[in-house]
């Protein structure tokens, strides 16, 4: 078996150091080495989006990347977006608009959606659907997911306007 590598990551603002095999996938490093289990394994093959994290400012499916490739990166997972006592607007919106059923896709959905709204703060419904097309949900039929994201976008925007 190959030699272990020293890996450094900043995850949700905290510096993490650990040993890993270079071939270990980022998702397994997060889940098994760091016990960050919000990002889920849905397909292992970069098609479902359940494992989505934000890596150096981009949405990344963490099953698509070796942990060695991520060395030195800054990563945000669902755990870094909000907590049960302090929900992010998107989290609140998914909860209120029933944008989830079994919840397995939800961390990946919300993590992707936070980036989507940064990339495009005022998306149309069409743009939301396109922007979320890499994240699969088997339960909801997506209707309420799209609704949750659009509602969060308008909430964020009206809060911004109020602040200006």
């Amino acid at each position, binding site marked *: 078996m190959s030699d272990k590598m020293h890996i450094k990551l900043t995850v949700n603002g905290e510096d993490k150091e650990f040993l890993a095999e270079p071939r270990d996938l980022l998702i397994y490093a997060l889940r098994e080495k760091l016990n960050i289990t919000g990002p889920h394994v849905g397909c292992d*093959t970069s098609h479902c989006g359940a494992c989505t994290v934000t890596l150096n400012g981009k949405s990344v499916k963490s099953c698509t990347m070796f942990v060695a490739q991520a060395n030195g990166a800054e990563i945000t997972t669902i755990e870094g977006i909000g907590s049960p006592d302090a929900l992010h607007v998107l989290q609140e919106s998914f909860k209120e608009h029933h944008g*989830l*059923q079994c*919840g397995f896709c*939800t961390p990946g959905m919300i993590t992707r959606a936070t980036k989507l709204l940064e990339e495009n703060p005022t998306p149309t419904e069409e743009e939301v659907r396109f922007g979320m097309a890499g994240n*699969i949900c088997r339960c909801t*039929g997506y209707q309420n997911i799209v609704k949750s994201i659009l509602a969060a976008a308008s909430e964020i925007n009206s809060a911004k306007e109020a602040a200006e």
Partner: protein
Amino acid sequence: MSVTKPLPHDSAKLHVTGTARYVDDIPVPADCLHLAFGLSDIACGSIQSINLDAVRAAPGVTSVWLAGDLPTDCDCSPSVHDEPLLSDGQIHYLGQPVFLVAATSHTAARHAARLGQIEYSPEPALLTIEDAYLAGSQFGDAPRIWERGTAAPAIYAAAHVIEGVLDMGGQEHFYLESQAAMVMPQDGGDMLVHSSTQHPSEIQHKVAHALDIPMHAVQVETRRMGGGFGGKESQGNALAISCAVVAAATGRPAKMRYDRDDDFTITGKRHDFQIRYRVGTDESGRIEGAEFLQLARCGWAQDLSFPVADRAMLHTDNAYFLPNVRIESHRLKTNTQSATAFRGFGGPQGMLGIERVMDHIAHTLGQDPLAVRRVNFYDTPETQSGRTSTPYGQEVDDFVLDELVTKLADQCDYSIRREAAAQWNETNPVLKRGIALTPVKFGISFTLTHLNQAGALVHVYQDGSIQLNHGGTEMGQGLFQKVAQVAASRFGVPIETIKITATDTGKVPNTSATAASSGSDLNGMAVKAACDTIRDRMATHLGKNVQFEGGSVVVDGSAIPFAEAAKRCYESRISLSATGFYKTPKLEWNPETGQGRPFFYFAYGAACSEVVIDTLTGENRILRTDIIHDAGASLNPVLDIGQVEGGFVQGAGWLTTEELIWDDKGRLRTHAPSTYKIPACSDRPDIFNVSLWDGQNTEDTIYRSKAVGEPPFMLGIAVLMALSDAVGACGDIYADLNAPATPERILKAVQKVRDGI
């Protein structure tokens, strides 16, 4: 009152923060072993020799099991004991587990499982419905046949005779969380099992059997699943049994999770069906006689195929009165994965048969398909013309579909848009539109009558908080919240007072699978019974005129907080814990004769879909869908609408993009989301209007609600019918579009209709 409120999912806060735990998220003890199966490479034959040296030598591997190393046959079957955990030397399908590897990590186990060297002597495999039907390979001594009246003479005497064949594919569940289990050995050989299962009691039963220990030595806990859809009714058995075997042999915890490819390759899916039909109608399109031959591909083991195929037979009528009918059902045994439960449980397949027939009649007679459907409807409670009896003898006495369909057709401008689509098709040679409106009538109850029972356990603590447990499992459908709403309403307390704990065989025993859409019907009633027992005890103790409302107990007009009341009862030595039990009334069913009352009631709904196809490529889109669905007096409209939307999209996926392809060796070629396409966010209809029917269950169910898990799945049928309507616009031949209607199939159908090839 909490019931009828649109409260969010009970775990919503945990889901949105990634803190809701699934089996794979439970922290594992450091010495935990991880398991994987070595799979067969052929579909049929016997094993000549096995060399597992490389497997044993692989890094991290601690031990390897073959069938002979197991404590028993470790049968995994939910029905007739025909599924040994590991091959006994015979191979029945490609992907069958042959050996079991335990290693120190998931990846190490998976890696090692690929290194087995197995020599086979292959035998010819039966893979398709045609193969198995011709070879007479089926389960049961004879096909099951149910008849009412005399179908053949009625068809012979009819003005029009229409016949055809419909093929429909299976469907992979693709629960986003793949199958998973973890077992921790306990004192004295007891086992604690965490399983992603819809049926904890079954897991308990199978684990106990595998280890030859009593059921009391096995405790199964299921907090939630990342989706189930029927795929976790029996398919989790193999994982839990494997973990238990390894835990018993090594004394170490063991965990197993299928990666997605293994999940596709090993586990059962929806049954694919071929339905051959022959019907005779009068001039209006009304059916006078009908014959159906239903061929179900069941795979290598029986699993739940008998009740599935029965349910297909029971939904042959859907919303239509069939005065003379003969249904013949063959349960074909093939060398493929053992087909299993999937949302609708055979109902969708049976229903699709008659919906195709309706369109075929309409085409032959040159009528509007909706008009043909309506003329065949059951009687409404008002129009008593003797058309109320189903082929199996159960009366349909609350047929709301006539009214519901009228409302939907009005609301969505069915006639105007049908006219507009026709005009569009006149002038557009390439893009063709189609529109269809199809109804759903779905029978609610397990057809195995004894499964229609449930238990609950409720504790009121002295601080007034309430803990609730029942036999149902949470897979996203919102069952826990609905049941908590029932409890909150019974005690008149806010929903936050109630905590629902993981489903646990140690708390409520002998439960049925959370299946057949029965979760809230059964468990809601059991919880109500338990709550009422405690409430009555409290009331008797507290005074004469007692009410539970607004977080208080009102005794003779003066309110005391619920917590205070609980404390007083506790101090007066009143028991604040109770079990509840419920069994569905009025059921009486004989599957041999196909007569009786298998269902407590029916759930109804209808969908209208409009699509557009590109006749040069077969590409297609759903432009608009309108749905009205009957959930009775909904316990929670937001959760119910979520079920309707999700069910429709999943149903539409089954009939359009989700295609399972086995090659001629029996290898499932579409074994990952790269090749098996489930609907994505961008596939949703452009316009999607969903509402609930404003009504009540006429039967005495929990707060007069209706089950909503499975019925909306069949609303997806409207999409297939709309696609065939669009194909039909290309010529005069009937577009007998099969499912799934992939672009390739649509293109072929267009060519057939347009050019006769």
